[in-house]
């Protein structure tokens, strides 16, 4: 059309060409603006295992005060995450399936944000920094060659008593009554003897603590051993039986909570070896 304008000398076609060029220019400006002031953050599950596909929540934040974000997409190797619209100062979320192939600390994936907005003539890309966020990838949990000696075996050893109060197991002490204690746990004898209400304190029914020692595991392949340790911890915690860990020079005492489990797994993930 530009050639037509120059060669016919028709000013109206010039006008059309000018309009088209203006559209191009304006679309460039709007497209550029559309991917400015965006921020990305990830919400990862607590447990990520090497080689396993993990869903990550991708939050795309539009930090602009007045200007919405239109038609953004994050091209990843397997799928496109599309965010049709984000209000000013708003956030949109999509699910991103991510796989960490090796244990350790991984920086969050750097996803470029792209947008064909407004006219699809150009696609603009911009890399979005996710500020210092890291994903901890645990070793892949493998039953390994030690299956018989350890995992199944330990279960059959029977219960032991844990030194924490609960309502099962044996009486481990007698203490003052606290409002809310069940009536049937009141130690009437002791109450009569002391003149104040006393309550029986019971131990928790629990398995015998398991102390895992990296060095004592057979085999030479460090990664295989870590994988197996990971399996054992994942299998036992939380609450099945307390687990402790000896890894390199570090010793983690037995524990049974979820936090403890994550602490152990994290230690496996970042273990450097000798």
């Amino acid at each position, binding site marked *: *059309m530009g050639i*037509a*304008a*120059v*060669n*016919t*000398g*028709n*000013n*109206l*076609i*010039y*006008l*059309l*060409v*000018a*309009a*088209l*060029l*203006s*559209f191009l*220019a*304006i*679309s460039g400006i*709007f497209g550029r603006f559309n991917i400015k002031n965006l921020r990305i953050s990830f919400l990862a599950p607590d447990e990520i295992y090497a080689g396993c596909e993990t869903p990550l929540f991708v939050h795309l934040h539009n930090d602009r005060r*007045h200007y*919405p974000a*239109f*038609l953004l*997409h994050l091209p990843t190797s397997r799928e496109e995450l*599309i965010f*049709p*619209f984000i*209000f000013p100062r708003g956030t949109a979320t999509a699910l991103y399936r991510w796989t960490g192939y090796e244990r350790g600390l991984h920086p969050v994936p750097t996803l470029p944000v792209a947008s*064909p*907005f*407004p*006219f*699809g003539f150009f696609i603009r890309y911009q890399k979005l920094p996710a500020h210092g966020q890291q994903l901890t990838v645990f070793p892949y949990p493998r039953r390994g060659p030690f299956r018989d000696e350890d995992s199944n075996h330990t279960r059959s050893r029977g219960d032991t008593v844990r030194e924490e109060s609960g309502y099962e197991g044996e009486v481990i002490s007698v203490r003052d009554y606290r409002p809310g204690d069940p009536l049937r746990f009141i130690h009437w004898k002791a109450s009569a003897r002391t003149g104040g209400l006393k309550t029986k304190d019971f131990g928790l029914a629990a398995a015998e603590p398991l102390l895992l020692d990296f060095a004592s595991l057979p085999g030479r392949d460090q990664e295989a051993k870590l994988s197996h340790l990971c399996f054992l911890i994942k299998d036992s915690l939380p609450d099945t039986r307390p687990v402790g860990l000896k890894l390199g020079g570090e010793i983690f005492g037995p524990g049974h909570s979820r936090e403890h489990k994550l602490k152990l797994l994290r230690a496996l993930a970042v273990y450097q070896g000798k």
Partner: protein
Amino acid sequence: MKRWHRLDIILNIFTYLIASLGFLSTMTLVGIPYRLAFIICIFLAVAGDVRPRLPKFRLVLQILAVIYVIVGLARFSSQEIVLPGMETLLALLGLKCLDKNYARDYLQIYALALLLVAGSSLLSLELSFFFYLGVLIFLLGPAIVLMTYERVKPRLIVSREELTAILKQALLMPLLVMPLTLLLFFLLPRTSYPVFSFLNRPAQTSSGFSDQVQLGNITQIQLDDSLVFRAVMEKQSDDALYWRGMVFDEFDGVSWRDSGAALEVRQVPRLRGKSVSYAVYLEPVEYQTLFALEKPLYISYRQLRRFDDQTFKARDPLNRKITYQAVSVLTDREAGVGEDMRRYLKLPPGLDKIRDLAGRLVGGKGPGDTAAALREYLRKPPFRYSLKKLPQSASPLDDFIFHSRTGNCEYFASTMAVMLRSRGIPARLIGGYRGGYYHEMGGYYAIQQRDAHVWVEAYLPEHGWTRYDPTPTVPVESDRTIWKQFFFRLRMTLDILDYYWNRHVISYDLQQQYALLMSLSRQVTGLSSVKIPWKNLGRHFLPLLSVIATVIIIFNMGLWWRQRLPRDRRLLQRFLRVLEKKGWPRPVYMGLEEFSHSIGDKNISMAAREFVRIYQSNFYRDRKPGREDREQLRRILKDLTSGSPLS
């Protein structure tokens, strides 16, 4: 309740609007079968959208498209390229509307509509093009944005708020495109020799004058309101406004003709008087004549021919809008350049009665006195100017002088010229325009066909060619009713739009571009030496600045107003702020209820619990607190701030 919208439906609406605009821009130009075909296509396309189960016949549509293209190609000729092309494009546009499945189909529709609008500019140069272009730009913005959405995520459903934001953005773009378009238009490179200018079809021309004046015939022109040309100049005195066009030297008793005996000359006549320089914007006409104010000294136009009777002709008919510069000297005399005078004395036989009358009227007077006396004779009663009941017979002049005594300028001028020739004074008729409407705002004269006029030039030995207008002066507005006058004024006021369109858009060329750039560069280089008049700056710019500032403030206030929280949320914020001041900030992870219970101060905690109860009783029912609740919330807040809660 949230309302949801499907983007593809809205995209279709915009697409049909754009297609229809392409159609409208060419509707009056293309043939009826094509118009009908297009309308049917659009109708079927809409029906297909409303009921998606209707069969689509894609193959049939594609075959039809091919047939249309072949027929269109077969109709191309060296004479007519654009129109068959446009008709084919229109047919394709209609078919494409029926068969649009992918984003590229939509783009094709927009391209076709754009080509149609562009093509319409080749066929006519109307101001309406600007309208079509403007609307097209405004529709294209949202349409292409929606199409991009459709391509990335087909059949996307969005909420009303999202849709509004998307459309607002999409409409903002055309608003910015408009001024940029104008800027680019003036800056885009031009050539002085367009190669394909033949594609520009001649515009609708108006006939106006021809090379002969038949008595009684000019009447049609004098009832015609259409514009002939505009002349940009300062206002001149009314009796100087004779726009010279053609010279008629041969009379056969009924009509005057241009014998073609005038010679092409180069020399410029010697003229005395006030000279004016002006630009003429001529509308398309069928003839080659260029008009200029009497007496024309010089006209600047390419390949112009100048004749010894002081007329100017272009090589080709002026069937496009053109512009030329002219210089005239405001005088009614011109010495002449030594023409052969014999042809200005010839008379047909059978005019004896008029000869006798002329003899009786001026017997024995010199040429100057003779001409003056004849003019005065014709200007006075019983002679009357009229456009109705003009004598039309084998001898119309006799009828006019001796019987009806009513006629238009042709009769008066013919009579005078014949009488002058009968007395041995060379005379000729000049055809052109008299007067014109001066447009104060635009600073130009608008000359309409109805201003067409014929007057006489007599050759006096002492002065040369001298202008005589024997037609009685008629008050210009006398034949117009009040309504006609009103509409005339209105039309002339609106005429300025058309004038600016012609002047700044249609006739913008390399030369004007160069002039514009030069003046810009002069102003830029001149800036450094300009002393800025601070005093005046304050006077002129402070009001402007304050207006801009006010607009910005109002805009920001509007934004703030729109973005502020609802009333109940604002109360809650105040509540939390008050508690924070009292030393009880709410931890982020804590819900309101938990927070109100966690406050250590018993009194404050009680008040806070009451506040939270009222607030939540509304919030979880998804309703806004009523007036009573609000009052209560406010009271609690007041008690909290004054430090005597629930006292």
